[in-house]
């Protein structure tokens, strides 16, 4: 019998892990620099918790058998963090700056055979901070993550769920959900065939293509009939974009013709989850372009988990580690090999075992990381040298019966390759 992993599952071998860690460590450094603290929540949650926000459907979840009611594997982290924030961290001082680096699970759709089901995400949640200054913090933090990964060719598709919702509210109630669904799915044909008045249809089509250079789009939105809260939301959006344009790292606007922000009011969801800005992070490095992260403001979500329905505002984003990995692979930045050992220690006789372990321990006790391997077999010296050369181990220590080391340097046959490792 051959034991295989389930469809859509994936094992990460040491080199995969080294590359994944390279990405995660850089992101983590940025999160730390901005004063965020790591939170680890449970992989398992009640289905009710996972679906409370309305953004997650049962069909997307991997459910587990349990005596404890319906439980499943988390498809994202925000629900878990919202739950824990209002229950376990009650009375905490806000704002709370939290980050995570975790695996998430999504059930493969029936039409995609063998689609991946386990993914890794790194992200942040900024809880208890309203206002566009918090929005700016999140987007600038995101930009710094991109910079830290030397990802220059990226852009942000930025929407505003509050303004979009108010524009939608002008459509007849019986058709509003259909209009919203069609706009969210860029379905112009449906918009043209819905029984809307000429003027309503034009407005729906205008919304569908309300995207582009922020200044142009802001101007178009300003020309629409907005109620006071939306006019205020527009004002906040303007301030946010002005600040981002000044603060975004220069490298991200390397595509000289356009700013890295595409303002897109058709970027909406078919559920009321986001309440303010909503965004997708897109890498243009690969062809076709790829979404490497997403996020937004969710000021009502925490209230759903609070026993007295008291809500706390929140905003965050998550980056898709697999997508980042794919985008970064051609750039040659990721490690090409797992780290090599610095030393190979070989006890020449059984009497030398104790001394060999002691010598290896001495080498490892260095202030900087020193990787020391023990030779475990009865190989002859030439085989051992060949092994060391193959593994690019540069120094080997032969330990004699009386415990004295004899040190030998191994020159790699592929000496051209070794310095860069």
């Amino acid at each position: 019998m051959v034991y295989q992993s389930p469809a859509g599952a994936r094992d990460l071998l040491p080199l995969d892990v080294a590359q994944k860690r390279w990405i995660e460590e850089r992101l983590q450094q940025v999160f730390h620099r901005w004063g965020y603290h790591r939170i680890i929540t449970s992989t398992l949650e009640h289905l009710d918790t996972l679906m409370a926000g309305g953004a997650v459907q049962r069909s997307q979840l991997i459910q587990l058998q349990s005596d404890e009611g319906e439980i499943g594997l988390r498809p994202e982290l925000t629900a878990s963090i919202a739950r824990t924030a209002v229950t376990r961290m009650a009375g905490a001082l806000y704002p709370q700056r939290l980050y995570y680096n975790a695996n998430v699970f999504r059930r493969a759709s029936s039409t995609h055979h063998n689609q991946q089901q386990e993914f890794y995400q790194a992200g942040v949640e900024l809880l208890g901070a309203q206002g566009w200054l918090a929005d700016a913090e999140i987007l600038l933090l995101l930009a710094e993550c991109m910079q830290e990964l030397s990802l220059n060719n990226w852009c942000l598709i930025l929407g505003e769920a509050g303004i979009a919702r108010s524009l939608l509210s002008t459509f007849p109630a019986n058709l509003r959900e259909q209009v919203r669904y069609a706009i969210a799915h860029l379905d112009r044909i449906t918009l043209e065939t819905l029984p809307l008045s000429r003027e309503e249809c034009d407005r729906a089509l205008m919304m569908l293509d309300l995207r582009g250079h922020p200044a142009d789009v802001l101007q178009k939105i300003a020309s629409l009939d907005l109620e006071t809260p939306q006019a205020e939301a527009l004002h906040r959006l303007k301030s946010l974009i002005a600040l981002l344009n000044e603060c975004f790292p220069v490298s991200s606007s390397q595509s000289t013709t356009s700013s890295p922000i595409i303002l897109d009011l058709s970027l909406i969801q078919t559920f009321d989850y986001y309440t303010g800005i909503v965004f997708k992070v897109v890498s243009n490095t690969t062809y076709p372009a790829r979404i490497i992260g997403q996020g937004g403001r969710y000021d009502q979500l925490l209230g759903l988990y609070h026993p007295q329905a008291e809500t706390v505002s929140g905003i965050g984003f998550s980056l898709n580690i697999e997508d980042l990995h794919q985008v970064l692979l051609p750039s040659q930045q990721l490690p090409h090999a797992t780290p090599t050992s610095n030393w190979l220690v070989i006890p020449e006789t059984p009497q030398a075992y104790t001394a060999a372990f002691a010598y290896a321990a001495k080498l490892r006790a260095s202030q900087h990381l020193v990787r020391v391997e023990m030779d475990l077999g009865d190989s002859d010296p030439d085989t051992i040298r060949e092994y060391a050369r193959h593994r690019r181990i540069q120094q080997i220590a032969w330990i004699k019966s009386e415990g004295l080391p004899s040190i030998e340097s191994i020159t790699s046959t592929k000496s051209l390759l070794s310095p860069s490792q």
Partner: protein
Amino acid sequence: MLTVALPKGALLKDSISLLQSVGLDFSAFLDSANRQLQIQDPTGKAQALLVRTHDVPVYVEYGQAQLGIAGYDVIREKKPQVAHLIDLGYGRCRMSVAVKASSPYRSAVELPTNSRVASKFVHCAREYFDSIDLPVEIVPLYGSVELGPITGMSEAIVDLVSTGRTLRENGLIEIEILYESTARLIAHPLSYRLNTDNLSEVIEKIRSHILAAV
């Protein structure tokens, strides 16, 4: 480079002449000597992929083609995550339920419960019979679906009908129309949002051409 996925078969000729009218020439696909599946427009502005009609939404969904032309029947069957931009008007046909002319059934609800229905459009057939609350067994076939009722394997079929000639010549009659289908212009959603390769310009040209033709 702008890449368009074009469907082999019935929609190809009209699709190529539509793109010609907006300045993109892929007529080399119509040359019977051509065996290439990927060709460039002579101006070097764009390229086209020649794929099976059911595969057009796949190339567009994954973004290997930013634009594609596919029948509504295929789009409805596969429900791809693509932007639905323009009803191109040609390739008009309908998705219908048909039975042997000699059978007693004259509407879908008259079919006996648990009867067999052969179709290439499995999801569509399933959705329709669910909507009229009639439990049937769907038999997936890849072609010559008319043989289902002729050989007695199935009571009915769900298939595309354009003129109705194939049905008539095989002794079948249409008893129900599920929906009308035409060719559609679809786009990769992310490329559409980013306006990759100035996609919007090509789309607008196609739209004006279609509007002018009406």
